[in-house]
């Protein structure tokens, strides 16, 4: 019997040499006359073990990692094709605590199947949701999404059903569905993992969104930094056309949906939905004032469903297993699961899909294993470059949208970046302003000018030049940016700055932060 060996082609695994390992396994098998198929998969998200090689034996998959090409001969010697013991062995992959303690709902297939294989997708429940949705009216589809409690996973956490309802109610004979795949936040990579590991799931979600509002065209706006995701999506879209999941007559239903990937060009601001639409239209990524909302007047002025990759990728399951199945996960108003991503200075960096409600500390220590350097974790930035820095005293906060709002932080896209006690938080605050200055689209003054002034003010504080005055000035400036900016870049950059100042005043040489008139 031909053994099956699984080696990820996820770009994280590739960054640790997975391609060389796959080649070494094929070569060694040829040398030994062993019959085996090397199946390329996405990643399980246990990145500290990449390249994580899995072998199918005895009805289960045994994990070995991190495997280097030089380990391959030894693995053959140890009989890894039959699940034999080896120093790099971890036993059955699904029993590894990091993995076993997750709730892999949206990510059930990622790292398991061959992302290019339509058969793999169909064998694991793929396109069942679409088949069910084809039997529903547009309003019924929207109703199901509303019932599931799904909220936008890009960061804003807006109820998806309400967004879709707005788009369905907006009169127009042409509507669009757009996936925001401009995953620019540092510390986030769940969109990438889905696109590289389970692209049909995103495609299926977008088709269902199209059916809901009778949109016949969709775009995936993908950041150019993700070439592997681009290739995987293009192949998957071509396959979906070949088998009539896309095109003028979806599965014989006489409903049409066409889908295309468009590449960004290295602009963080294009992750903001209105800047993304401008960019898709071939223009500079300048944000548009809202209203009108994209759901009313979006791409080329037409009603547009614009959702994050994970939001859309969550949709097929809701139609396969029902709104209740999804809603039963989670806490409070945060329903379902979120694929958290833990990174930065962390021992076990990776993807942790859990129902809302586990605490930040559990994510950092139980999953992440503490800092990689072995020093205490001092600060964690949650929610990307626009998210707050959180001190250890708040690590018991549950990962839930409302609980995070309660501590003046945001969950965002679910990324948590850890820093040990060598971090200089005044420097991180300066970086936030510098990043904002670099990435500002320039449309509004608070963001365009405020970010540059912010860098200067923090430089003066750090140089102890009129520190007291400049600290008060920074308070005023963040207040102005928070309330005066047109979009979430200038409007949220005060979060990392103010949280750094509030929770780590000693790094700014600030004595009494209460005097500073901080906006929160």
């Amino acid at each position, binding site marked *: 019997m031909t053994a099956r060996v699984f080696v990820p082609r996820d*770009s*994280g695994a*590739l*960054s*640790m040499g997975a391609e060389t390992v796959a080649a070494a396994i094929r070569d060694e098998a040829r040398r030994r006359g062993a019959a085996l198929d090397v199946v390329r998969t996405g990643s399980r998200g246990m*990145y*500290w073990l*990449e390249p994580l090689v899995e072998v199918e034996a005895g009805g289960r998959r045994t994990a070995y990692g991190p495997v280097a090409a030089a380990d391959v001969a030894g693995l053959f010697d140890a009989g890894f094709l039959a699940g034999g013991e080896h120093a790099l062995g971890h036993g059955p992959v699904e029993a590894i605590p990091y993995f076993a303690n997750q709730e892999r709902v949206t990510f059930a297939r990622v790292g398991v199947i061959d992302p290019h294989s339509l058969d793999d997708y169909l064998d694991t429940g793929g396109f069942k949701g679409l088949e069910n949705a084809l039997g529903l009216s547009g309003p019924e589809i929207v109703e199901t999404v509303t019932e599931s409690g799904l909220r936008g996973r890009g960061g804003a956490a807006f109820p998806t059903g309400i967004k879709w309802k707005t788009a369905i109610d907006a009169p127009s004979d042409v509507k669009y569905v757009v996936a925001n795949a401009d*995953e*620019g936040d*540092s*510390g*986030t*990579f769940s969109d*990438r993992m889905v696109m590289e590991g389970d692209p049909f799931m995103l495609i299926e979600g977008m088709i269902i969104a199209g059916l809901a509002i009778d949109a016949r065209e969709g775009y995936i706006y993908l950041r*150019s*930094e*993700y*070439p592997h995701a681009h290739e995987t999506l293009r192949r998957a879209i071509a396959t979906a056309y070949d088998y009539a999941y896309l095109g003028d007559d979806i599965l014989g239903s006489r409903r049409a949906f066409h889908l*295309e990937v*468009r*590449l*960004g*060009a*290295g*602009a*963080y601001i294009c992750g903001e939905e209105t800047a993304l639409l401008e*960019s*898709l*239209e*071939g*223009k*500079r*990524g300048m944000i548009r004032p809202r209203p009108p909302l994209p759901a009313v007047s979006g791409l*080329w002025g037409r009603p547009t469903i614009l959702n994050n990759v994970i939001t859309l990728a969550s949709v097929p399951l809701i139609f396969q297993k029902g709104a209740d199945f999804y809603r039963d996960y989670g806490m409070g108003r945060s329903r379902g699961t979120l694929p958290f*991503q*833990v*990174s*930065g*200075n*962390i021992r076990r*960096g*990776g*993807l942790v899909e859990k129902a809302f409600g586990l605490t930040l500390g559990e994510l950092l220590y139980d999953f992440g294993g503490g800092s*990689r*350097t072995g020093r205490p974790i001092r600060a964690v*930035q949650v929610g990307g*470059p626009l998210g707050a820095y959180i001190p250890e005293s708040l690590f018991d906060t549950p990962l839930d949208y409302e609980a995070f709002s309660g501590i003046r932080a945001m969950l965002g896209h679910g*990324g948590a*970046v*850890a*820093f*040990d006690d060598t*971090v200089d938080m005044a420097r*991180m605050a300066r*970086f936030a302003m510098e*990043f904002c200055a*670099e*990435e500002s*689209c320039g449309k509004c003054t608070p963001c365009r000018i405020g970010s540059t002034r912010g860098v200067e003010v923090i430089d003066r504080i750090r140089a102890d030049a009129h520190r007291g005055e400049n600290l008060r000035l920074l308070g005023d400036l963040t207040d102005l940016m928070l309330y005066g900016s047109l979009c979430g870049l200038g409007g949220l950059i005060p979060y990392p700055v103010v949280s750094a100042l509030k929770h780590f005043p000693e790094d700014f040489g600030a004595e009494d932060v209460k005097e500073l008139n901080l906006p929160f």
Partner: protein
Amino acid sequence: MPASDPDTQLSDVALKLVDATVETLRDRRGALLPILHEIQAEMGCVPEAVIPVVAERLNLTRAEVYGVVTFYADFRTEPLGRKVVHVCQAESCQALGSDALGASAKAHLGVDFEGTTEDGAFTLRKVYCLGNCALSPSVMIGGEVHGRVTPDSIGKLIDAGRTAP
């Protein structure tokens, strides 16, 4: 304006390439970004002389095309080195010493960020996030991402990139 306008100093070969690219992609809505990506892939950059040609073909103003070319970090009007070394400087990589990595890359190549080596082999650039945060710090050399890079290993990776295809 006609393509023979003195402002455009494109060779006939380049002009043909630009025309062919525009012709292939112009029917797609919002075609400008895909066209610029394609031109850059073929020519290594979007030379200034291309801007009026593309503008004329798409019935846009030069300012509109110039605005787009200069807005996005990916597009440039001058060619870069044969390979680009991108050193990630976003938060996750900062947490594990991307500063030292940047310094090491600068010392190894003898250029600052945005600089190109004299032999034209490499351009050094910073990038904000390669999506490889769980394996920080990361660099990308000629399109290949490397995780958990150290100030010592970055030089070897760059040298290996010099000879790799």
